[in-house]
């Protein structure tokens, strides 16, 4: 595994699984990263707004969508956090929601730059 590959593993990306899913197509991976770049902030905002409004149905829906995207990129740890948020939304459990969202943000913070760096390095 390359140096960047190691970095991705350190931030919780299951790189072998991700490469298998995109069938080693780095252009496709680049496209998926582009979609994530556009969709993640929108969904995170939607999740935060839903928490503020106490709209637990939307908390569940936004978390479900985030979980799907993170699973698609094999970001296993963050996907597990999104899954936990989804369950909290479904159960109507408000306590601990904000903390879980903060954890999710932290887990994803370095994801985009590291993924960009990885695809750039592999394409060289």
């Amino acid at each position, binding site marked *: 595994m390359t140096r960047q590959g190691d970095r991705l593993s350190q931030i919780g990306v299951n790189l072998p*699984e991700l490469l*298998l*899913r*995109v*069938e080693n*197509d780095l252009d*496709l991976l680049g*496209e*998926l990263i582009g*979609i*994530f770049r556009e*969709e993640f902030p929108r969904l995170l905002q939607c999740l935060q707004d839903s928490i503020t409004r106490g709209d637990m149905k939307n908390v569940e*829906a936004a978390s*479900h*969508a985030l*979980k*799907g*995207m993170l*699973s*698609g*990129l*094999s970001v296993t740890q963050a996907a597990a956090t999104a*899954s936990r948020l989804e369950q909290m939304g479904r159960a109507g459990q408000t306590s601990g929601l904000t903390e879980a969202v903060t954890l999710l943000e932290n887990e994803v913070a370095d994801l985009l730059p590291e993924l960009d760096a990885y695809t750039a390095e592999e394409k060289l």
Partner: protein
Amino acid sequence: MRILIADDDRMSRRLLEKTLEREGYEVIAVDNGRLALQQLSLPDGPRLALLDWMMPELDGPGVCLEVRKQHERPYIHIVLVTSRASKQDIVAGLEAGADDYLTKPWDPTELTARLRVGRRILQLEDRLVEARETMRFKATHDPLTSLFNRGIIVDLLTRELARTRREKGCTVVMLGDLDHFKSVNDTYGHVVGDEVLREIARRLLASIRSYDFVGRYGGEEFLIVLNNCDSAQAIVRAEEVRNKIAQHPVQTIRGPLPITMSLGVLASQDWDLQLVEEILGEADLALYRAKADGRNCVRVGKPTALCNAQDQLAK
């Protein structure tokens, strides 16, 4: 083969699309359940579908339920793609009408393998439907002429007469018999006789409207049922049929043969007969008269009372 992907998650949709295109599928991708149902309800819509469980407007199981209500359509193999992997969810998905399920994040080799299973099932279904249709055709059609066989044409006549009585309309029944057909078989052999029967069947079909029926009633006897046709038109239509047969000789391997047909005709409105056997009996009597009057002609069966009334009017 065409396949439908329905997923509101852009990333998942793109990933599925690319994976399936690599496998040679023609992909139709939509982002909600309503659009998925729309695609799957089209007459030539895709027969393989990958549906996300949670979607706006209509979820995956909801699409399955609606699709399974469409009994007339060819079968659609549906795979639910879901991150809901509890036994309860899986059972609910399958009960809604899904054939298979895959949990997210999916593995591309497993995905394509499961779709191959789906294709095999669809191919099997196609073969079964084809076999059923072949058997249905054989059970209802005469193997030589491909016209309706006796059982079916009499059934159709029975149904048509019942409808006519209900709606106070009129059905015309024509019983046609080829003249001197036995001598065709005796002189030229049965291969030529069969050629003649096939050509006559073709001419009969060409001389009726799309909503009329024609069947092989016996060896060289044919039954024609004309819907919504009254006694005034009956003789005109019967003469058209007779002309169609007599107009040109039938081309056979032994050369052209002149063939004619005698016809007994009756219009249901002229008779107060309830049983199809009685109607056919009267048509047969009219046919007998056509034969007795020199063949290659049409005779109309009319009840004695009607004949007397018409005679009186003529005087």
